[in-house]
């Protein structure tokens, strides 16, 4: 510990603390622009200059470490003069159009100028102004407003392990931007907006909608993935305009899904009334009639003929409510694994994101972690930035494949086999790994790396890894496709898998379905089965926010609440509970899942207890040693294709998030560089993909890291029923030009 004096106030701080940190502890304000608590100090803006006794020059407080007995002064005329000078310099070519700048009110330049600047400027020359640049659907860069603190550039370097975002040119004409891309939508683009201290980078979703100071902030939780990041939602007149990540929970950064995803709450197409089917239409007949209709219909079925299909992002309260409802009426069947997973949660023995970022060796297996758990992928990139050795064994992970130190790319159908052979210690030539690659992986496994397993892996692989990790004392995180797997598993909301449930519906042994906020046509890879099942379902209640393919089959539509419209608790991948508060009043008939079930239950004469007193997640225990199931590929053709929903479409209530969808406007087919060459394809070409019958039009993206003979195709587009031609994620396909 070092004792230092700042403006006469004595503080005791860590030996490696900087003067700025010490001043914050002492309660003394030192202005800064380029400093950020989660970025490495850069000392660029020179705003934080202070006087240190015994040093001839002024010293930047953000980079200078304290020394025991140091005497710092921030109130001398010299410091004041320097601060005024720096502010004057910063404002020379700044447009000073705060009345219509979007950042006004939360602008550090504005705040600091009011506090430390001079009221007048001596500048009489012409201001240099630069054109505004639109970098894709999310961000706008206004160079004139930029103070070149390089926070955004440092973020992309330190956390994203590099992205096309840097400083170009020199001196006063330095320009921040991209080198070759016209747009930047790189999963974490929103952080550039949040990190910018001035109005140089602004969000296109929020721009010119509302003034910052008219917003009230409500604590909520993002429900897109199993991390359940805490977010603050900016609310004005009962409408959310903005999301912001203020607390370090679970990490300091968020992804675009969370930042732009609240849009669905305000979407004009959102349904806020309970609807009943009248012939071909869902119509508003009044709440009472709807409830009566549902209870009457439910009375016709035996409990074993009713089933629930659950969404990801389920809150603890909702899960408990569903459980109690099922118990009330003896309903046995519920399923949360709509992605056709065959596994239940194994959990992890890692407690926080910091543990990942501090790891020296990380083995990332299977995929697609960056798509399903973006912030974990970002933390892995942060570890790369800190010098960690990250090895990735996968067939497809768009974000991580370009950034890891060592990549072992294999065919999608070989993924499970390769991981299984690695952990069972027997090399198998059919897995697509050469002997040498296998030995390198095995040697890396000897360094006791942290294991991160993505959602594509099968149960047998998961069990083997957990078993191996526990026996050898390794850290592991086993990620599930569904973000609510812990909650759903703990409350027993699963049966034999979505495919067997849908088969039962098809066969008529399950007649009534409650589908809660899931578009089955999008989420279930076996679209043919979904169509057959929904076509033969007798009675269906759909709860959700929007009308979609699945809701088309519904007899009743019940509107749900989302985000800060209800109070809820969530359990993240580390087993920690986060709370979302209710801050928006409901306008019409929207309710949470549990409230709807309570209404229905009470209508049927049974009370539904909604109170949750305690929650402790349960996990599957590893038993026995199973071999992974062989993947049988349907279709025929020279190529093996993996069908995945792209990042900017892989979220709840896709219909209501038009901003995010703009980043993924059309289906893309990723082709390896070898195949692109042999087929004569280049970026932007269109091809049609033949999946044993129907063919689909795709735009080509040449992806250098892919293995020869492998295609990765997007699904999840409206009016693009690829899923219905498939019965699994992987299939044999043909390309036609």
């Amino acid at each position, binding site marked *: 510990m070092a004792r230092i004096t700042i403006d006469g106030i004595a503080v005791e701080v860590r030996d490696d603390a900087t003067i700025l940190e010490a001043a914050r502890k002492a309660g003394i304000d030192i202005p800064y622009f380029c400093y950020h608590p989660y970025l490495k100090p850069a000392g660029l803006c*020179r705003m934080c200059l202070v006087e240190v006794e015994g040093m001839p020059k002024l010293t930047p407080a953000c980079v200078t470490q304290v020394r025991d007995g140091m005497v710092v002064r921030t109130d001398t005329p010299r410091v004041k003069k320097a601060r005024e000078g720096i502010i004057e310099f910063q404002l*020379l070519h700044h447009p000073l159009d705060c009345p219509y700048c979007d950042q006004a009110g939360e602008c550090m330049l504005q705040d600091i100028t009011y506090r430390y600047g001079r009221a007048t400027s001596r500048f009489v020359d012409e201001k240099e102004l630069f054109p505004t640049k639109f970098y894709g659907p999310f961000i706008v860069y206004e160079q004139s407003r930029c103070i070149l603190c390089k926070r955004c550039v440092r973020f992309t370097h330190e956390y994203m392990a590099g992205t096309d975002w840097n400083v170009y040119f020199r001196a006063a004409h330095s320009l921040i931007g991209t080198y070759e891309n016209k747009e930047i939508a790189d999963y974490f683009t929103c952080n550039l907006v949040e990190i910018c201290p001035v109005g140089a980078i602004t969000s296109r979703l929020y721009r010119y909608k509302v003034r910052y100071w008219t917003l009230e902030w409500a604590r909520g939780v993002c429900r897109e993935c199993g991390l359940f990041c805490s977010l603050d939602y900016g609310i004005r007149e009962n409408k959310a305009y903005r999301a912001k990540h203020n607390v370090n929970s679970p990490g300091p950064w968020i992804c675009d899904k969370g930042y732009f995803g609240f849009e669905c709450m305000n979407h004009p197409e959102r349904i806020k009334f309970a609807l009943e089917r009248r012939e071909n239409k869902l119509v508003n007949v009044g709440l009472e009639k709807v409830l009566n209709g549902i209870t009457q219909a439910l009375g016709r079925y035996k409990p074993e003929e009713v089933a629930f299909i659950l969404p990801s992002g389920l809150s603890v309260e909702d899960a408990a409510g569903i459980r109690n409802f099922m118990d009330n009426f003896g309903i046995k069947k519920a399923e949360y694994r709509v992605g056709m997973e065959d596994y239940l949660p194994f959990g992890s023995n890692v407690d926080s994101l910091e543990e990942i970022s501090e790891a020296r060796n990380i083995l990332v297996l299977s995929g697609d972690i960056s798509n399903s758990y973006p912030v974990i992928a970002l933390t892995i990139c942060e570890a790369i930035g800190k010098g960690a050795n990250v090895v990735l064994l996968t067939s497809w992970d768009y974000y991580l494949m370009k950034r890891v130190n060592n990549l072992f790319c294999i065919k999608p159908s070989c993924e499970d086999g390769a991981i299984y052979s690695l952990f069972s210690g027997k090399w198998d030539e059919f897995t697509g790994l050469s002997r040498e690659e296998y030995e390198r992986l095995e040697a890396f496994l000897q360094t006791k790396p942290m294991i991160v397993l993505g959602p594509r892996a099968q149960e047998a692989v998961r069990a083997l890894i957990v078993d191996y990790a526990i026996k050898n004392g390794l850290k592991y995180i086993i990620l599930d496709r569904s973000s609510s797997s812990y909650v759903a598993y703990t409350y027993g909301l699963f049966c034999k898998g979505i495919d067997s449930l849908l088969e039962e519906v098809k066969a008529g042994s399950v007649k009534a379905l409650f589908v809660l906020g899931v578009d089955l046509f999008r989420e279930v890879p076996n679209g043919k089965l979904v169509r057959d099942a929904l076509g033969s379902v007798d009675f269906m209640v759909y709860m959700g926010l929007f009308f979609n393919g699945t809701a088309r089959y519904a007899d009743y539509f019940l509107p749900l609440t989302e985000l800060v419209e209800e109070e809820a608790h969530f359990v993240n991948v580390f087993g920690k509970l986060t709370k979302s508060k209710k801050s928006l009043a409901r306008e019409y008939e929207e309710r949470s899942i549990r409230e709807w079930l309570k209404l229905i239950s009470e209508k049927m004469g049974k009370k539904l207890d909604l109170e949750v007193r305690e929650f402790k997640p349960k996990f599957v225990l590893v038993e026995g040693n199973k071999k992974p199931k062989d993947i049988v590929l349907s279709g025929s053709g020279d190529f093996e294709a993996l069908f995945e929903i792209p990042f900017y479409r892989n979220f709840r209530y896709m219909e209501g998030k038009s901003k995010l969808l703009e980043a993924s406007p059309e289906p893309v087919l990723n082709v390896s560089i070898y195949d692109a060459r042999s087929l004569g394809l280049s970026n932007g070409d269109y091809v049609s993909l033949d999946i044993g019958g129907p063919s689909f039009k795709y735009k080509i993206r040449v992806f250098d890291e892919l293995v020869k003979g492998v295609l990765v195709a997007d699904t999840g587009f409206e009016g693009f029923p690829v899923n219905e031609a498939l019965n699994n994620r992987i299939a044999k396909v043909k390309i036609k030009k």
Partner: protein
Amino acid sequence: MGEYRLLLANVDKPGSHKLEVYRKAGGYERLRKALFEMKPDEVVEEVKKSGLRGRGGAGFPTGVKWGFVPKTDLPKYLICNADEGEPGTFKDRVIIEKDPHLLLEGIAISAYAIGAHEAFIYIRGEYEYGARILESAIREAEEAGILGDNALGSGYRIKIVVHRGAGAYVCGEETALINSLEGRRGHPRLRPPFPASKGVYQCPTIVNNVETLASVPFIVEKGGDWYASLGTEKSKGTKLFSISGHIKRPGVYELILGTPFDVLLNELAGGVRDGRKLKAVIPGGSSTPMLTAEEVEGMTLDYENIQARGSQLGSGAVIVMDDSTNIVKVVWRLAKFYAHESCGQCTPCREGTRWMVQILDRIVRGEGRMEDLDVLLDFESIMAGNCLCPLGDAALGPLISGITKFRSEFEAQIKSGRCLV
């Protein structure tokens, strides 16, 4: 007192850049002496004794700098800073082009002294001929077994690599140079850590000027005490002066430090042009404050004497201006140079240099205001010492001295709106 040729002893010989010519003059014997007869610490000790100071401009004692290299297992690197970009400086070029083997020998000895096996010569992009000369000299020396895996059969490995810059003045600053060498943007780094502890690839690195390194062989040959016997109390040895401007014989002259300025100006360079009077002198490259004709009277060329007169010896680039010079335009031209060469990282330098040019532009155009001069003088309190690297201070050198010493000229130009010289 006239020229004293130590570094320039070989340059006039025909084929002076060839190894055979250099060897005939006793070349690489100093390296042999260092490798076989001296321990690395002894070399450092001799250099410390010699009082040799960095010839690139800052004048930091070389031996002390070498002493900062920590004793670690990490590889160590030596960088020869040949990014000679300071306006008015062209002294290193003579050594590089005419006597490259002297430089290589100096680098080899210095690398041995600090324990480096790899040395880089970072040469400015414009010195294409120099880079070719150095490359062929390195090839010659390697083929002769002087450099390479087994330097002169001693078992010590010395590998010298020439790296060409891409034309940024700021890359002459040692941390920007290191960034550029690593393949990054040529932006100065924060200090601390200093390069001596964390430089190239985060390993201990010493960056020395060409002239500094070329002086080392003589110190090894004749001893530090001998070298220290040349010059004044605080300025030891000889120094190259590149004199340019309104004089009859511009060029590079080698003088013992402490030689009167008069000798350089009038005896060697032939004095100012006929019929003209001396008006101002920039004594050490464009970054150093300019001195008036009165101020240079009786000046001797050494670190302390010039400092006492409010300027610096710098890189020894003397720019002489006679009474036909418009100081406003000189200041304006130099400000433009710095505004163009600022790296753009820190606010005071980036914005200050741009604004400087905007104001001076206006004054030169005839639209100046009297207040402008005070604004320009006020830059000192905002920029001096507050920048990330010395470039901001360098930009202030000519500006502040020009306005304070020739204020009447500025005022006349502002009042009349045109140049009166």
